[in-house]
Structure formats: C-alpha cells, structure tokens
C-alpha cells in the first residue's frame, strides 16, 4: 500500500454487494436515457416494416453495418470482463476478485443481451433461426455458426444463472412469501454452480475468438496490419483486457458518483491482471506484424497507420502509467487510464470490421456511412443497457461495499419496510448486531 496520504484513514475492504440506497431510480438522466432507448425501439419497427435497405446505409458492397460491427463485435468485448476476472478468481485463486464478480457479471449479461437484440434486428430472415436446432444443417466450421450458437447460449444460460443469486437474495428480503422457493433453490444453485461457471468461461473464449475468425474469411479485403491468422486469438485476448478495464472503469464511476468507498487492494489486483493481459498482447501483435513482413506498413499506410498507432498508444500508454502506484491510487487517474484502454481496445475490435475493411470493387473501395436510423437503434441498445444497469445496481446487492454499508442500507430500508430483516436463511436472528436495532 502506498499509504503516505491515507495514513489517517481506515483501509477500506469490500466485503459484500450492497444496493445503492437512498437514490431514486428515476432521475432526469434516467428519463433521458430511457427516452433514447424507446425512440430506438420505434425505429426497430420501422426497420422491420420497410426493410433493411430503407433503414440502413448498407449496400451490396458493404453488407455489414454498425449493428453487427459495433454493437456485437465491439461492444461485447466490454461485457467480456467476467471471464478473465472469473478465471483469475476461481481458477488462479485470486480470492479478492470475487468482490467485483457481481458487477462484471451484470455488465456482461446486459451487454450480451443488447448485442443479441442487435443481431435480431440485423438478421433479415429471423424466422429461419430455428435452424440452430437442426443438427444436419450445422456448418460447424463457419465462425458465424459458432457466434450464433455460443452467444445466445452464453447469455441466456450460464450468464443468466450467474446473475440470479442477487435477485433471489433480494427476493428473500423483500418478498417473504417467496422465501420458501429461495431456500429451496439456493442449494441447487450451489451444487450446479461449478458446472455453470466453467461453461461461462468456455463459451466466451469460443465465441469471442469466433468473432475474430469472422473477419478471417474476408481474406485480403481487410488491411494487412489487422488481417492475420492470429486474429481469433488477438480478438479474444483483447476482449479479456477490454472487459477488465471496463469493469474497473464502471466500478470506479459508480463509486465516485454515489460516493462509495473504494477498496484499493482489489483495484491493484485488477490492474495487475490488466497489465498481465495487455503487455503480452501488444508484444504478440507487433511480433505477428513483423513476422508476416508488414513492418514498414506500420509507418507507410497513411491514415491507416495513424489508426494503428492510435489504437496501440491508447492501449499501451495508459497500461504503462498504471504500473506506477501513484496512478493506481488516485481514482481519477485510474478511471481515466482505464477509459483510454477501453477506447483503444474498442478501436482495435472495430477497425478490421469497418475502417480497415476495404471491399475490392474494380479499383473502387466501397464505403459506408451509417444512417440516422442505424445510429439511433445502436444508441438505443446502449441506453437500454445503461438503464437496466442503473435499475439493477439501485435495487440489487451488486456493487461491492464494506460490511458497514450493508447495515446502513438495512436501517435505511427499515424506514419504508419495517418488517424487513436483511439477514439470512432462518437462523439469523441470534446473530443480529445489536447496534442495528
């Protein structure tokens, strides 16, 4: 600990997920976000009625737009924090990281859920999706098949189940008639948990790499600085560190917004995970470019070179700074650096699909500008995600906090629900701390 400024403060330890209490869910910002979200859903109806051509800027030369390339291929990386953090916590036994698991699982679920919505809007013959169940029609070498199977399966099965404990917990407190069900469900969840969790780490590794493999098939239509046989590996790896950085940034943002205490030791652990992921990734990427003989392209390809270096520096420089305790201990610099890493990582995931993707048509490169409707729908899904996140953290024990905050929240809720007893599973009365009464 770099305790020179904090010697007079008590060291904060995150021990439990605690809802953000005493803050209304419906605020001005929330209404604004919800309005944007709803507008998008109106446009979805427009797109379904009038077709993809009318609603989007897509053409035969450029068939994939931001719904796929941004909402799915880029944003799901932000929701991939749960698998690197989970693997570190459960398999490499970094026990501290369990504190942030609930947040990162929630982010994962929401991002994947809105990503699935984006696919559903983008796909033009959705009534044929039943083919997922007809085994003899599977083309298992198609990365698209892997994405179409893995992503919904991941989101709706392991991720969903991993997100149920906070809901059940809250149900137990605030809905006494449902307690029997919760008490019945909890042992079942515990028994199956390792199997579900292992699935939750296998599936994202598969489909995040498949997202990279999607661009593999476009061959030399993607600029050689991005196109490489290692694209699947680099994609899943990038997803891992973008996910970790997103988790750090969003937890910090929540803590700063709602003035909650920050556990520095957990932040340090997360940052060290982040650094372990980022530096080898950069090395592998550069090495790959050199081995493929594209070294000079890093400097001679004009705007694309600029793009390449923007990505690399946005990822490298913040990670380099974060090695120093000075930048980690300050919540603001930590947030800023993680934010830059997320931006750089997103650029890396987005570029090969759109900016560095140059479909070859008789010497003319097809280009694409997203239409207003496309942007509105894309934004709407992002806002949906944020709205659901806000509701969840204000109603469910998700954000990590010290134990004391739990008792504070209990006495707060007592004002409105006098019968409430926020301790658990039957035998808790004898353990109740005296000062909470």
């Amino acid at each position: 600990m770099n305790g020179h400024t904090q010697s007079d403060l008590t060291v904060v330890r995150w021990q439990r997920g605690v809802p953000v209490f005493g803050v209304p869910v419906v605020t001005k910002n929330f209404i604004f976000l919800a309005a944007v979200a709803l507008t998008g859903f109106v446009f979805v109806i427009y797109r379904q009625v009038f077709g993809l051509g009318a609603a989007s800027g897509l053409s035969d030369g450029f068939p994939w737009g931001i719904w796929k390339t941004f909402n799915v291929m880029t944003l799901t990386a932000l929701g991939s924090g749960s698998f690197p953090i989970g693997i570190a916590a459960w398999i490499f036994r970094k026990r501290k990281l369990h504190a942030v698991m609930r947040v990162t699982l929630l982010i994962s679920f929401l991002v994947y859920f809105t990503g699935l919505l984006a696919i559903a809007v983008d796909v033009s013959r959705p009534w044929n999706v039943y083919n997922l169940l007809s085994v003899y029609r599977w083309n298992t070498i198609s990365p698209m098949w892997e994405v179409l199977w893995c992503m919904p399966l991941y989101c709706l099965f392991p991720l969903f189940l991993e997100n149920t404990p906070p809901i059940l917990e809250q149900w137990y407190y605030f809905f006494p008639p449902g307690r029997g069900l919760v008490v019945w469900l909890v042992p079942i969840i515990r028994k199956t948990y390792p199997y579900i969790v292992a699935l939750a780490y296998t599936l994202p590794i598969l489909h995040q790499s498949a997202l990279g493999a999607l661009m593999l098939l476009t061959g030399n239509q993607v600029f050689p600085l991005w196109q490489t046989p290692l694209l699947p590996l680099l994609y899943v790896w990038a997803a891992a560190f973008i996910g970790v950085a997103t988790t750090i940034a969003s937890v910090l943002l929540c803590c700063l917004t709602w003035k909650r205490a920050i556990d520095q030791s957990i932040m340090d652990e997360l940052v060290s995970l982040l650094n372990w992921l980022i530096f080898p990734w950069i090395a592998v990427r550069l090495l790959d470019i050199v081995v493929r003989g594209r070294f000079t392209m890093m400097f001679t390809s004009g705007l694309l070179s600029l793009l390449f270096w923007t990505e690399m520096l946005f990822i490298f420089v913040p990670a380099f700074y974060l090695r120093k305790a000075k930048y980690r201990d300050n919540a603001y610099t930590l947030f800023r650096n993680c934010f830059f890493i997320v931006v750089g990582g997103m650029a890396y995931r987005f570029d090969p699909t759109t900016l560095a993707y140059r479909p070859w048509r008789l010497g003319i490169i097809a280009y694409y500008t997203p239409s207003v409707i496309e942007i509105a729908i894309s934004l709407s899904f992002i806002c949906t995600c944020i709205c659901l996140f806000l509701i969840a953290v204000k109603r469910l024990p998700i954000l990590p906090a010290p134990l004391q905050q739990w008792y504070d929240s209990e006495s707060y809720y007592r004002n409105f629900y006098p019968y409430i007893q926020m301790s658990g599973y039957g035998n808790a009365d004898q353990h109740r701390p005296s000062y909470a009464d």
Partner: protein
Amino acid sequence: MSLTRRDLLKMGTMAGAAAAVGDAVVGTAQEPVPTPPRDAVGMLYDSTKCIGCKSCVVACADANGLQPDTRVDSLHQAPNDLNSFTKNIIKLYKPKYGEGGTFAFVKRQCMHCVDPFCVAACPFHALEKNRVTGVVSWSADKCIGCRYCQLACPYQIPKFDWDAFNAKIVKCEFCKERLAAGKEPACTYVCPPKAVIFGRRDVLLREAHRRINEHPGKYFEDRVYGEKEAGGTQVLYLAAVNFDLLGLPHLSPTEHPSNWLRWQERVMKYFLLPISIYGVMVAFLKQNFREHEAEIDEEHKKTGLIPQL
C-alpha cells in the same frame, strides 16, 4: 490400485484433450488442397471473343424468372452491376483517353469456386456446393439473412434484396433447373459468338490452354483466370487485359477458406477441444468452489448475513 468410473472418465477426458491438441497442431501443419468434384461443370469465358451484345443478360433474367432491371431509365434492361434483379452482367473496361491499351468486355456471375468462401461462411448450409456438379446454390429455408456470404466473397457476387421484407440472396446458380433437364445454362446457350461456353471443368481447362498455345502472347500472362485463384473456380476466364482491370481480384492459390479456417476446423472437430477445456475448468472449479463455500459459510455463521456467492 482400483480404477473407479470417475478415474476412467477423467483419463478419457485427458486423452481426448491430448488427442485434440495434437490433432490441432499436427493437422494444421499440412495445408489443405481443395479439389473440384469429379464431374464438375464449368464455363469458359473468352473476353477477346465477346461482342458485348448482352444477350446472355436477357437470357439469364428470362431463364431465372427475374424481373428485368429497368431502374436506370425505366425503359431498358440496363443494370449497373450485379444486383437482386441481375445474376449475370456484361461490363466494359475502357482505357482512359490517351492511354494505350485495348477495351475489353467481361461477363460477371458467380465463379462457383472449388472451395467457395460463401459456403464456408454460411452458418446453416443455405449456400451449398453440389457434390456432383459443384454448382453453388442458395436455399431459402436455411438462410437467416446474416449476409456473411456477401462479406466473405472476394468476387462480390452474392447480392441481397435490400428492399424486400422476405429478403433473398441472389446469385448465379448455373441454371440448375436447366442442367437437371439436360440443357446447358441460358447464357452459354444464347451467346452468338460462343464467347462463353459450357462444359466439364477439366475439358474447358484443356480448351483454354489449347487457345493459349495456339495464340501465344494474345492472352494476359498466358494465364487462365480461375485455374488456381483461391483454390480454383469452375468459371474460367481468358482475357487480353489485366484481370485486375476487369474486376477479377488477384488471389493467391493458398487464399482459400479451408486454409484460412483450418484452425477453426481443427478446434471444432467433434467439439473435443472445447469439451476438454470445459472438463479441466470444472476440475479446478470444483475444488476451489468447495473452499470458497466453506469460507462464505464461515462468514455467514459470524455475521448472520446471507452468503453471497
């Protein structure tokens, strides 16, 4: 030492994992070489013979029941490019004024690759390569409209019906109904100067080389486009000008999908690798989960609060 069923299962998983990893590493060392079906049909288009009459464009629309694309002037069937109304088109390459060189027509339609990108891309075999004739065709009941075939095709062939509710992928299907009825495709049937001819791919390839040998230097690089490009195509081209100028991209023989996706293929083979990763993770998790559970239960006893997983 007795062997329990659990041990046996564990050993099986380990062996499976080892086999999958070994297969992935060793198998990918050899590059796959695509071969056309034995009775692969084909077309040979000789740009130097084409007179640009566009009979084939009209015949194609007629034979395939396509609406004539008169969107340019509401009068003539004059599509700008391949599109959802047009499976076949004649284009003209004209050198810029003052530059040397000769003009050339080019007929564009699906190349019916030996190792098609669209077929590798399609998640549900909506685009399929016929095992006998090698014709790549589309079926409506499997396509989900993801347009990955469009993204993957290096020749930009599959076209999408952007304005329709029941959107379709439109591409040349080698007049498969006519083939089944024992006829040749409409475009080769009508071509007045026989610039495009129909036949078996191997026969056409020999014919193309015969023409090159007969007129050395007449054809660009004395080369048949489609013999080796991206593993070969069943539609072959001869031209006097650079194929690049005709919109036929430069593709190396190894740039075919089964080469690009050979890792994907190995990794997903019998799902061995994912299953072994899963197995290993479960093994680690079960042990660590037990410890974690003990810890949170301890916490529960101390504080009385519901244990949080």
